[in-house]
């Protein structure tokens, strides 16, 4: 996004050609969102229903727009004279009362019949997601499980089966939304809401908090990875295991530093003394696609940058920036965390 397109005054002064260019630029920018975070990039049964509703409403809106403007044109240019009552009255009652009532009632009935499908029971897997400021606490509850598999900031799902999401929030309202897979559902502190999703395509899709929840609301995202069922089962089994012990000198130094800096007071790394519950579970953080709930990637440099510049990357986040650590220490810590696969 350029400064020019942010300033409507500049566009206005530039004349029509610059305005058209700015709109074109905006459209090309928006198209970049199309792949992974678009309700029109349908990758699930529930998103398909919403997309169908959208296209039907769009087509209807276009027809109405053309019809109304055609009528305005006809009345103002073609036949501008007065019309007899016997023509005007049926047009007013039919077009002004009966038609909108029938259209709105049809759309209302259609959309209301869609809602129960979006909350259909799961096929065996339930995921509990809690909205935190500004990250996602995730617990997998496969059928019959007595304890959850805990992770954070990333959701993996099996393709072709329906997964139920029990949604909750800590402190403020959030909203859980994976546009490519289905509709959004608000998350309220102290109240559990439910939505279910049935992905139909494998791939990686972006989810986003869709309810303003504070300074870093825009940075509260997550990756959703839809896997073939066997791959999902294998991933879940691996995710349930304790953390991999550090391999290599750098990672071992990083593990010692992690303990010495008190990171375990807030984070859990299962199989170690770190059992904190305030921040995201880091047991398998090295296998995640992003850090800071979709804020940055997950390379070694990203790990070091996150630890050193936490607050700059995510305003008002609770985790302090560990900018007193040397570059070497940051590299060791990154090696340890990246090794937690």
């Amino acid at each position, binding site marked *: 996004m350029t400064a020019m397109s942010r300033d409507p005054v500049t566009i206005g002064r530039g004349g029509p050609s610059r305005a058209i260019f700015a709109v074109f630029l905006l459209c090309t920018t928006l198209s970049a969102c199309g792949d992974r975070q678009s309700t029109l990039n349908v990758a699930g049964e529930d998103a398909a229903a919403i997309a169908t509703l959208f296209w039907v409403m769009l087509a209807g809106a276009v027809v109405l727009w053309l019809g109304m403007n055609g009528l305005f044109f006809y009345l103002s240019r073609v036949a501008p004279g007065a019309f007899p009552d016997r023509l005007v009255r049926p047009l007013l009652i039919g077009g002004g*009362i009966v038609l909108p009532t029938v259209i*709105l*009632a049809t759309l*209302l*009935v259609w959309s209301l019949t869609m809602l*129960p499908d979006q909350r259909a029971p799961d096929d065996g897997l339930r995921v509990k997601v809690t909205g935190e400021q500004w990250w996602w606490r995730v617990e997998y509850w496969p059928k019959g499980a007595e304890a959850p598999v805990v992770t954070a900031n990333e959701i993996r799902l099996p393709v072709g089966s329906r997964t139920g999401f029990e949604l909750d929030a800590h402190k403020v309202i959030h909203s859980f939304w994976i546009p490519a897979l289905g509709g959004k559902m608000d998350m309220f502190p102290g109240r559990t*809401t439910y939505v279910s999703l049935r992905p139909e395509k494998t791939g990686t899709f972006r989810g986003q908090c869709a309810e303003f929840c504070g300074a870093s609301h825009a940075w509260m995202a997550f990756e959703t990875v839809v896997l073939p069922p066997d791959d999902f089962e294998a991933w879940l089994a691996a995710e349930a295991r304790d953390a991999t012990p550090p391999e290599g000198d750098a990672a071992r130094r990083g593990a010692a530093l992690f303990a010495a800096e008190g990171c375990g007071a807030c984070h859990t790394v299962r199989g170690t003394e770190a059992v904190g519950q305030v921040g995201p579970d880091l047991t398998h953080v090295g296998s995640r696609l992003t850090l800071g709930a979709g804020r940055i990637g997950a390379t070694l440099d990203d790990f070091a940058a996150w630890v050193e510049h936490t607050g700059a990357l995510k305003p008002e986040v609770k985790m302090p920036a560990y900018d007193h650590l040397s570059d070497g220490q940051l590299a060791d810590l990154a090696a340890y965390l990246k090794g937690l696969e």
Partner: protein
Amino acid sequence: MTDRHTPEKDSAEFAAEAGSLWRITFAPATWAGHFLLCYTLFATGCAKGWPVGTVRHGLIGMSVLALAVIALIGWRAYAQWSPRSTGRIVNPRGDAEDRHHFLGHAGFLLAVISFIGVVFVTLPLLLLEGCR
């Protein structure tokens, strides 16, 4: 203004239509009451764990009642408007008779929109069964 209109006469005519003025509010008031009852009772029922089926069926019954009341109000308003017997759909004259018919017309239209409003509020009751 003609000599037929004196302040005293106008006051007497307006007083005669006071009942009509009240009546045109009845259909929207029924709609508003129904709306409030549906939303508050269902939300309270879900929050307090009342049996959802009972609340739902009770409210559907209330909806039928509200529609019947609005239909009755609309029918009475239509009779007051009486476009068929007078042969006039609009009543632009400022005399007592036209004022009487006009208030019937307004009451009828308000009853129509209130009826549609109650139907729209009732549809979720019919199509969504649970609290979620």
